[in-house]
């Protein structure tokens, strides 16, 4: 007998190995005779490369080779951008190693290949580069001004895109209330725990690339396209990968160059970045200036919303750089009903590290913009921020609901999640304490922040990606193999890097096949093993990849049914499948699916037309996105003497649909909230006016640890998604998306009696203090 696995808080199969160091991080791997690569990186934000001389480096002990960008100019191609979001988009050439010009600090200009990393590092010092400085372009508004120096020949505008729906003029005409705000989404550094690493090897014909990547399948295709090496001669392996948060959803210069170096030298090569190198050259996240106008009636009902974004692309368009702000295009309206909506976005080139996907990717930015604005609307009308949301949100009986931005939300229950959150939070009691502290002029003020978010997950229906001009589909693939002894291999095209797919997929397959959880293994992350896949990002793995596992299991079961009918000498229709066994109805005759696997293996007595395997493949492509939602409430104490913000309590009630493993879901929400709080309070990639990154170490780029965060109170409502048979909605990004505005809303709420209506992120003690100083004067 097996019990239901889906819904059980199973401990992760992965963890014993990970926690005891029996891991295969790319940097732990080696090959006989492996050589070590190090890159010389530009210290200039913008310069013409006059001369690169690697000859002195070539002569140093242990150095096998040294190359400049020019040495690879003929074969290195251009790093790909797969998402030309508009007709007017400019996609500049992006050589993996700069040849004529550098456009951000950290761009690779040369490399050394040596017998060990120490010698390679020393040899970098011997490379001479002459730069002719060009002006840095750091500020987006200045970049778009007519006299600005250009990042690229074609100018500093990468693209522009507009979405309109409804009559915006009518919505704003004579509107009793107009909220007009500008918010800055600061630039962030993803900071996965495992730095990037790449190893490449060749047997003279074929190539293997090991990379700390989220996207082995996409990477394989792209490496073939960029280098011209035929796709079938490239194998990509993502071994254990220690976090990504979108930063490893990329085709990087280092991956391309390691492959080309292995080809050029005919030897295995390996590169591992340092943390500071990563801060400079792992793609960054966020970096938008959001101008938001919202028109409302006197009772708080929203009439229209106008969003104008400037999105910093950095120096080049990488894999999905321009698509990131566009992922938010249909979400600024969020859970609210309105008559008119306009979104426009301008992508801007600057001489900084390119931006790209970072946990939430476009959706946290949108959620921040609208949720901050909803609190401002509430303040303007002297309404409770919960009440102003109630007056505008889609009611549960209105689903499915097509929003003003054109998405159809399949399901949701904002009332239920909010009511649960309010009760867990002790909302009324905290409001009373807040009033008391205000009356007493307590130097420590209390603030309460609300965030009622939704987001779109399960990237993505291929048809919709096609409409958005994305360069690939959004399906996912799974294979199931029943082994002769009845054990099961599940092969998934998703590529976990911390999410626990091995555990969750085992739970799904255990229920679908009726085999024990322990009898299932999950293979992934190697294009020679998992031959088809679209990898892991955008909270897509369960919602698409998990469903593919279900569908593959269904096929195996139907094959097994035919075999069972043959063995048991009955009609397939007379068989009931229960707890892993086919039972002839009304008899005690049965065969387990695991026994049938052996029968298929021996193949001594198979019915006509049944192959000697209980295997299957399935590809799933959803009709719609999924839409997790929830209500997050945050209470902060703000020390008005120092500006220090302390989170006192945090409640999150998320609706991520059907839950496969509550422990994993809690872990995702925990980490997600921490990462969102980090944006609100701690993290910011800072460039100076010359385009130098000032936050190259963790002493300058502050990440919170457990000591800096409160305990979170988590709960859920469960409104299953209708767009997939599991009913799951995805949970990888929800916490990050929801928490940032909850924290900033709380800070502003604490300070509002002082006349403060915004604090720029991260809300450092100094920024809070300066805001207070500004109004004290």
């Amino acid at each position: 007998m097996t019990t239901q696995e889906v819904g059980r808080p199973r401990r992760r199969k992965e963890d014993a190995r990970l926690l005891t160091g029996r891991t295969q991080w790319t940097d732990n791997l080696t090959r006989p005779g492996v050589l070590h690569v190090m890159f010389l990186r530009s210290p200039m934000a913008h310069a013409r490369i006059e001369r690169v001389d690697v000859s002195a480096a070539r002569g140093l002990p242990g150095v096998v080779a040294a190359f400049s960008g020019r040495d690879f100019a003929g074969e290195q191609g251009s790093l790909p951008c797969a998402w030309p979001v508009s007709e007017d988009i400019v996609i500049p050439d992006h050589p993996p190693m700069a040849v004529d010009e550098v456009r951000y600090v950290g761009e690779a200009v040369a490399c050394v290949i040596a017998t060990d990393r120490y010698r390679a590092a020393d040899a970098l010092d011997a490379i001479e580069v002459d730069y002719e400085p060009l002006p840095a372009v750091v500020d987006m508004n200045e970049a778009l001004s007519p006299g600005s120096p250009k990042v690229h020949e074609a100018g500093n505008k990468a693209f522009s895109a507009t979405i309109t729906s409804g009559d915006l003029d009518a919505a704003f005409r004579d509107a009793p209330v107009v909220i007009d705000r500008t918010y800055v989404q600061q630039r962030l550094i993803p900071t996965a725990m495992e730095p990037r690493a790449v190893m490449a090897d060749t047997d003279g014909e074929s190539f293997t690339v090991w990379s700390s990547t989220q996207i082995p399948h996409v990477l394989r295709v792209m490496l073939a396209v960029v280098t011209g090496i035929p796709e079938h001669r490239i194998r990509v392996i993502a071994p254990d990968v220690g976090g990504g948060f979108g930063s490893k959803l990329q085709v990087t210069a280092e991956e391309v160059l390691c492959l080309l170096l292995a080809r050029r030298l005919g030897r295995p090569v390996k590169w591992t970045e340092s943390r500071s190198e990563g801060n400079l050259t792992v793609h960054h996240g966020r970096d938008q200036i959001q101008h938001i106008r919202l028109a409302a009636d006197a009772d708080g009902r929203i009439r229209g919303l106008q969003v104008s974004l400037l999105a910093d692309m950095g120096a080049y368009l990488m894999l999905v750089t321009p698509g990131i702000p566009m992922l938010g295009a249909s979400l600024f309206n969020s859970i609210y009903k309105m008559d008119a909506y306009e979104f426009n976005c301008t992508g801007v080139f600057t001489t900084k590290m390119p931006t790209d996907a970072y946990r939430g990717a476009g959706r946290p930015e949108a959620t921040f913009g609208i949720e901050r604005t909803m609190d401002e609307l509430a303040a303007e009308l002297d309404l409770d921020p919960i009440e102003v949301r109630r007056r505008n949100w889609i009611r549960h009986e209105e689903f499915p609901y097509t929003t003003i931005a054109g998405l159809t939300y399949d399901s949701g229950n904002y009332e239920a999640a909010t009511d649960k959150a309010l009760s867990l939070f002790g909302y009324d009691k905290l409001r009373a304490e807040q009033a008391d502290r205000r009356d007493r002029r307590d130097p420590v003020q209390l603030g309460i922040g609300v965030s009622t978010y939704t987001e779109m997950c399960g990237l993505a229906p291929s048809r919709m990606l096609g409409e958005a001009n994305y360069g690939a589909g959004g399906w996912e693939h799974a294979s199931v193999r029943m082994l002769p002894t009845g054990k099961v291999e599940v092969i998934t095209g998703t590529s976990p890097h911390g999410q626990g797919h091995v555990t969750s997929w085992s739970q799904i397959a255990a229920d679908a096949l009726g085999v024990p959880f322990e009898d299932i293994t999950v293979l992934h992350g190697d294009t020679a093993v998992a031959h088809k896949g679209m990898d892991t990002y955008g909270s897509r793995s369960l919602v698409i990849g998990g469903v593919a596992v279900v569908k593959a299991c269904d096929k195996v079961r139907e094959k097994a049914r035919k075999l069972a009918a043959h063995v048991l000498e009955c009609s397939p229709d007379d068989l009931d499948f229960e707890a892993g066994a086919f039972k002839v109805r009304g008899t005690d005759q049965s065969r387990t699916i695991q026994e049938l696997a052996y029968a298929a293996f021996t193949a001594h007595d198979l019915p006509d037309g049944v192959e000697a395997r209980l295997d299957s493949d399935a590809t799933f492509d959803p009709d719609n996105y999924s839409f997790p939602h929830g209500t997050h409430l945050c209470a902060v104490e703000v020390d008005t003497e120092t500006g220090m913000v302390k989170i006192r309590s945090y409640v999150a009630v998320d609706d991520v649909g059907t839950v496969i493993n509550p422990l994993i879901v809690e872990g995702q929400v925990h980490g997600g909230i921490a990462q969102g709080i980090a944006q609100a309070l701690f993290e910011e990639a800072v460039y100076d006016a010359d385009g130098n990154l000032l936050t190259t170490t963790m002493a300058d780029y502050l990440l919170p640890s457990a000591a800096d965060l409160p305990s979170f109170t988590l709960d859920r409502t469960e409104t299953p998604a209708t767009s997939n048979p599991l009913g799951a909605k995805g949970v990888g990004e929800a916490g990050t998306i929801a928490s940032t505005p909850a924290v900033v809303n709380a800070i502003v709420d604490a300070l509002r009696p002082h006349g403060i209506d915004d604090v720029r992120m991260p809300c450092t003690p100094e920024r809070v203090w300066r805001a207070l100083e500004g109004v004290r004067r």
Partner: protein
Amino acid sequence: MIPAQFDYERPSSLAEACEALAADDEAKVLAGGQSLLPLLRLRLAYPTTLVDVGRLEELQGVHDRGDHVFIGAMATHDEVMRSPAVTSGCPLVAMATSQVADPAIRHRGTFGGSLAHADPAGDLPAVVLALDGVLVARSAEGEREIPAAEFFVDYLESSLAQGEILAGVKIPKLGEGWGFHYEKFHRTAQSWATVGVAAAVHRSNGTITEARIGLTNMGPTPVRARATEESLRDVELGEQVRRACEQAADGTSPPSDLHAQPDYRRHLARVLTHRAVRTASGSP
């Protein structure tokens, strides 16, 4: 993040260590490595020899010596904060040491190393300065005692001469009636103090008779809040104390970095000094 090449010496006596250090002008002493190794890995420092003093018996341990506590330079932060000699003889040192970085660093980093590094953002220099500690240096020429006020010369620069090794620090014990507090203000638990205030306050019958206040990260060296100390002679607890603490930033030249501009640091110094003095004096 790979250091440039260097030679490595691990002498077995303090005398040998002094010799090794004197033999190379570009030699550096390696103690717990918590400050030096990051500098090497970032290639911000290029010493040609590292003299590892980790195994020198003479530098180990914490010793109660009657009127003072002698803290060996190689005593780790963890050892210091748990030492009964420190918690009873100079509790301010224990308070501040327990707030240095995180447990992993406190098990590696050393008391002497963090003083010899002379980083004004470190927690311990201001504490030793406030307590009028005496730093004991050894060289081939013998032993030299340096008052804390003369030890911190400039940013990351101490008055140790090339060839001299910090052997330990004498922390005078303060008698009855003293209260202590280290007020550290930092953005995350693991970051350096934006500003820190080390306060030792002597009370008698509801008045403060004397206060000694060291400031962390308020200039290129740790500094004493002298004006506030002067104003805190024989004052009653309350408004007078608050006014005295308004002078805490007088004469300081705090740095400007990503975490704070100088004016904000001055403001923090005033607020935090008031908090530290109040707590140290047992005021509610």
